[in-house]
């Protein structure tokens, strides 16, 4: 049974008509129409679906969409700096931290949450802060470099 409610995603209010048992990643990808949030496991294991809810990183595959009512949802599509890349996005590209790109949106959201909470993280804090995001391509070395550079630049 579908129900009508609203979601605030990247500062835009979307009318939603969906079953109450739908998870946030599926509603973002189909009802809202933002596919930057990826689904890699549907079980909170890979981090590809990471979004921010009121600034907190959340695996959206395991969060009911209806629970996000009245909260600010931020996806990878919402972190552009106007028409420019966000420093995390630019540094990931310049450091070579993007290969297949499937983990990248979730990685960016986790890194953004980390840097908001802790603008000058140590290497160890970055490693732990991003340990919920699996990447199979890069060996993480260049992702780490991109986050360190972003912290140093701000």
């Amino acid at each position, binding site marked *: 049974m579908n129900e009508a409610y609203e979601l605030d995603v990247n500062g835009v209010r979307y009318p939603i008509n969906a079953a109450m048992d739908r998870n946030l990643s599926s509603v973002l*990808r189909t009802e809202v129409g933002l596919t930057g949030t*990826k689904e*890699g496991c549907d079980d909170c294991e890979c981090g590809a679906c990471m979004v921010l809810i009121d600034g907190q990183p959340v695996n959206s595959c395991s969060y009911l969409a209806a629970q996000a009512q009245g909260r600010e949802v931020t996806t990878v599509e919402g972190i552009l700096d106007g028409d420019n*890349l966000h420093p995390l996005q630019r540094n990931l590209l310049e450091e070579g931290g993007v290969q297949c790109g499937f983990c990248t949106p979730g990685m960016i959201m986790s890194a953004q949450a980390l840097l908001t909470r802790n603008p000058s993280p140590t290497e160890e804090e970055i490693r732990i802060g991003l340990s*919920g995001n699996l990447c*199979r391509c890069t*060996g993480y070395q*260049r992702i*780490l470099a991109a986050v360190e550079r972003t912290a140093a630049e701000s």
Partner: protein
Amino acid sequence: MVIAESPRFMRADGPDKVTGSGRYTADLTLTGMLTAKFLYAGVSHARITKLDVTAARHVPGVFAVLTQADVPDIRYGSVADRTLFSDGVIRFEGEVVAAVAAIDTKSAQAALDAIVFEYEELPVINDVEAALEPDTPLVHENWATYDADDDVSRQANVASFTSITRGDVDAALAGADRVISSRYVADASHAVPIEPRGVVAQWEGDRVTIWSSTQVPFQARDGVCEVLELPTNRVRIIVPHLGGGFGGKCGFHYEAHIAALARASRRPVRLVFSREEEFLAPDRRREGMIIEVTSGLNADGTIAGRRSRVLLDNGAYSSDAAFFPHMAAMHALGPYKIDHVHAEASSVYTNHQPSGSVRAPTAPQACWALESHTDELAKAIGMDPVAFRQLNAVDTGATGVTGQVYDEIGLQECIREAVAASAYGDELADDEAVGVAIGWWPTFPGASGAYIKVDSDGKGVIITGAQECGTGAVMTLPYLAAAELGMAPEDFELVYQDTSVGPYDVGATGSQTLLNNGRATVEAARQIAVQLKQLAAEKLEASPDDIVLNGGKAFVAGSPDSGVTIAELAAIAADGEMLLGRGSGAPPETPEAPNTVSCVGDQGMNGWAGPQFSCHAVRIRLDRDTGVVRVLEVNTAHDSGVIINQIGASGQVEGGVLMGIGQALTERTVYGADAKQMNAGLLEYKLQTMADAPPISIHFAEVYTPDMGPNGSKPIAEAPNVATAAAISNAIAKLVGKPVRLLPMTAERVWETLQEDGA
């Protein structure tokens, strides 16, 4: 040519990937699109006694239900042992029995539930050695009637077999000073791309477009054409962004199932795998392996002879695994100077998920065993293991195990540099050690093609059949074209991953993209360079031979200020003979291995074109109370020829090393007594995380390799995955006192080895 300097290499697909605008297959939606779901066997070995889909076809919202009865009766694969749906016998748990297309997931599931599927179980073949026993039933009762390449040798449950023989190994071992034998057993593991696979198919009239997360779109197209009996020009495979593959998305998988569902339901159909399906179903799993090696040593520490025997777990079907025995045999002999060798390798049918290409297939496991054995050899004669390798490993001018004489290579440089960068020989805490291992991997020359056009504004498009799976290989092509034409990489757009547009390409497999398509792209660009020089010569009243293309201009050599821009020349060409280039490029030849004799099941891999070499040194810390190993640092050195794209190549090394650490310590497939996987999930399978990842240093031994890849290059993507587990094994053995003979070397296995005598 090195791209890393200036401008810094920025991948053209990068902005799309970091902003979330990039579309992967699961992101596509077509009007009227249905959802596909498969009925899997869920049992490892059985004979189907009843399969009735009548009720399923009447479930509301269901548009099509298909079984093998609904598609052409065709067997396919490198040994033609495979059918799209079960042929009546179930041979592994992930076998597709039926496929459903329905309006939504719930209707599709209801249809699966309504299928009557009954079977009688057969004894499971869960172990490669048991599969070889004379009274073990055949996984394929009718295998003798299956087609296979003439050079694939088969018998009973052996799907494919290879031997390599050179010299007289019996006499060499009999005359050796010391003879040492080792046995190692590696578990199966998985590719685990973070993107689960997806397929979307849509028919328009008598032609079908299939969007698929494949590494090999042309192979996928050929598979669809074969099993659905269609000409190649009616099947178009388009790959949206591909979310990683690592070999797991090579081959032909589910494109034909979804095309058949779309045709039957007269609607577009989409399949998206769950993570569990990604583990259980595809014909791509890194094979379990048993490796036995016996080496004879001379008094001076040289290797007198080597006998190796390898058993590979082929699984239920052969996919592309028919050449694996040959690769495994080469890796079980190794990049050493040995005149007397004999190797036998068999890929054995079992009721497991089929094996298939996963990054450097067979190499990490076989290298792990051989290099662990190598440290055992050095220890037995009291020789330093690095010195032992420096004495015995091949280098420029040396003769390898198959009689191939190597042109200029950098293996000894790799050993020297990786060890020098490491803490090898330093005073370390008593719970730390450094292990060293060497690896090798062949280069696969092949056909490939590219077109380039330069439009009237001087901007170009490269149209290639090559497939980008994340490595950056396709993203490097604009740099190659730009270098030939004196233009900027940003002047080129790429059109790729579309079989109806690009020329044939083998795909993102065998590390071959930049090797083969790079040559094609350079050749296409050179055709345009000839045209531009002709146009410039007329404009500047000079000879075409004196024209230089540089900085976006054409000018007479020595007079860069009086040239004409490429954009001006392109505008002139647009009114006449347009700027069009095409390249293919004859593939480099594979060298002979002239002294190898009596080779059965020869897959043509005794001589390796452009062999790549590596040495990894790994420092670890061992907790002796728990057996937990922590990797602290990895120092690598690679001979992949001249490096074209430093950032891209380094990314391959770092990613390959981390995959190797996973294989060394945590990644394994656990089979139950019923031959079903017991850990088909990311939490249970255990990939390495950022918190686990060590710092990795890289040295490239940039040996210019003529007549191979562009600019003296060799490939890079698979080689870094070869030697890491082996180096970790040798570090563990130093601390434990003996090697851990099971891969992965989990904490439990390390701890158990610590309790053994001699540890």
